[in-house]
């Protein structure tokens, strides 16, 4: 895989010990992801949605905004920097008092309605810390490039979610043994009635997992509008496409969902990635539904193009995560992956959470150096050196590369 050239527009000299977070200017935030398509770089802006801090705008409408890399260095991503991703541009503002969740079945007449207060009163509250990552995170770094929202590194965030178990709600509703999938509707719509609603489904075993929750709080406060208020689905370990925002309708299905968003979008070629067996009712001869996140990691405290001092300790920090087995170990490299040294990995709030790591290296030669990071999951998954190419640009977990100049 060739690495495209990237014009260095800026040079920073870090203070002697770079463990102190470096303030990065707007132009640097936007330029901090090399290898994006030129049109993506040209149309990116640092923009502020109501209630958010400045984030990297990929598209205004539907709103797609990614978290700046420097904001991903802590285990919990601040709510006002949590990435924003919508498929459809009409996003109603739903007052918690007006919120209603409807349950139904495609094979019996059962139906049930809940208000937000009903959910909070009738079911046991639970909390889980879990990473939310777009299936197409880093699509913009695919080589060759592929069409879509050209995300850099920031279509991922981590938060503490509070809500109730979906399982408890489904049992109260009376889910039966012939339910093979559970489908979910969000309240977002296209401006045209003909545009299909955003509908996703989960296999029943995943919907009934005690970690799958209907959340109404994120980091101790109501979920921000842009992240799916008043209630969104949390599916720890699985990519964000299943984490339905503004969830308004749940339906028990006895046959597989035929939603465009299940059968045409979010598909992976078979036998390319782990997890092909996770959603068998949505698999066909050639493709499977994208499900579990693959192991991944980021360097968050050093921006591409920075300068660092020779023969002085350089702290490399960041986060690692996977589809829920937890992180076994993280390694860093200062010679573009030729040699590696272990990083210290902090204990995480859950196996679904960001795992913070740090390592101190001492660059001993002048000139350009490529820092790399890679993680190993408890499940034995490793990050690949070369991209596992797929036409939709999913599951990009190539070793993160940050170029620095040693001066």
């Amino acid at each position, binding site marked *: 895989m060739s690495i495209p050239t990237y014009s260095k527009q800026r040079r920073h000299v870090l203070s002697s010990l770079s463990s102190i977070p470096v303030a990065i200017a707007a132009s640097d935030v936007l330029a901090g992801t090399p290898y994006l*398509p*030129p049109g993506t770089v040209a149309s990116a*802006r640092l923009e502020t949605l109501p209630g958010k801090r400045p984030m990297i*705008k990929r*598209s205004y*409408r539907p709103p797609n905004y990614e978290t700046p890399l420097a904001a991903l260095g802590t285990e919990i991503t601040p709510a006002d920097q949590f990435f924003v991703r919508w498929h459809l541009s009409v996003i109603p503002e739903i007052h918690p008092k007006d919120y209603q969740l409807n349950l139904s079945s495609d094979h019996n007449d059962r139906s049930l309605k809940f208000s937000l207060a009903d959910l909070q009163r009738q079911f046991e509250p639970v909390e889980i810390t879990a990473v939310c990552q777009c299936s197409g995170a880093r699509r913009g770094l695919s080589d060759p490039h592929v*069409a879509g929202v050209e995300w850099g590194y920031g279509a991922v965030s981590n938060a503490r979610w509070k809500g109730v178990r979906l399982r408890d709600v489904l049992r109260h509703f009376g889910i039966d043994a012939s339910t093979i999938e559970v489908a979910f509707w969000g309240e977002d719509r296209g*401006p045209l009635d003909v545009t299909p609603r955003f509908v996703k489904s989960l296999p029943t075993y995943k919907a009934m997992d005690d970690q799958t929750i209907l959340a109404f709080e994120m980091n101790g406060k109501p979920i921000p509008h842009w992240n799916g208020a008043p209630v969104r689905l949390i599916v720890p370990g699985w990519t964000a496409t299943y984490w339905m925002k503004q969830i308004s309708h749940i339906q028990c299905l006895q046959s597989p969902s035929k939603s465009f968003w299940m059968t045409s979008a979010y598909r992976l070629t078979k036998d390319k990635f782990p997890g092909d067996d996770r959603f068998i009712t949505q698999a066909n001869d050639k493709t499977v539904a994208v499900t579990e996140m693959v192991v991944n990691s980021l360097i968050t405290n050093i921006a591409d193009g920075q300068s660092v001092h020779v023969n002085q300790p350089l702290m490399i920090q960041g986060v690692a995560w996977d589809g829920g087995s937890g992180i076994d170990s993280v390694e860093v490299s200062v010679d573009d992956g030729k040699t590696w040294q272990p990083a210290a990995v902090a204990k995480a709030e859950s196996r679904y959470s960001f795992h913070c790591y740090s390592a101190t290296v001492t660059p001993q030669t002048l000139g350009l150096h490529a820092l790399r990071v890679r993680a190993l999951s408890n499940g034995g998954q490793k990050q690949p050196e070369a991209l596992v190419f797929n036409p939709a640009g999913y599951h990009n977990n190539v070793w993160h590369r940050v170029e620095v100049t040693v001066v």
Partner: protein
Amino acid sequence: MKHSIVVMIATITLGLLGSWLCLADETKIVWENSDAARLVQSRCITCHSLDYIQMNAGVIKGANWEAEVNKMRKAYGAPINDEEAKQIVAYLSQKFGGE
């Protein structure tokens, strides 16, 4: 580019009352003023801002824009007739299909 105009989105989308539309600073997007460019604007911005196109400039190469326009028509129901689709594909291929 002979002229450039600021695309005015608001008039088209404000009919959708009661919804929180993300207009943000979409109106800052600068777009060419030609018949073909206006056709692209009028058909595409019903559902999405024009930066979706800019973001994919050169990613979707040449005539491959036809598949993208077809997806918008068939999967999302974009109201674009065959003749308009031809003009839109020709414009996008030329302006945004480069290497």
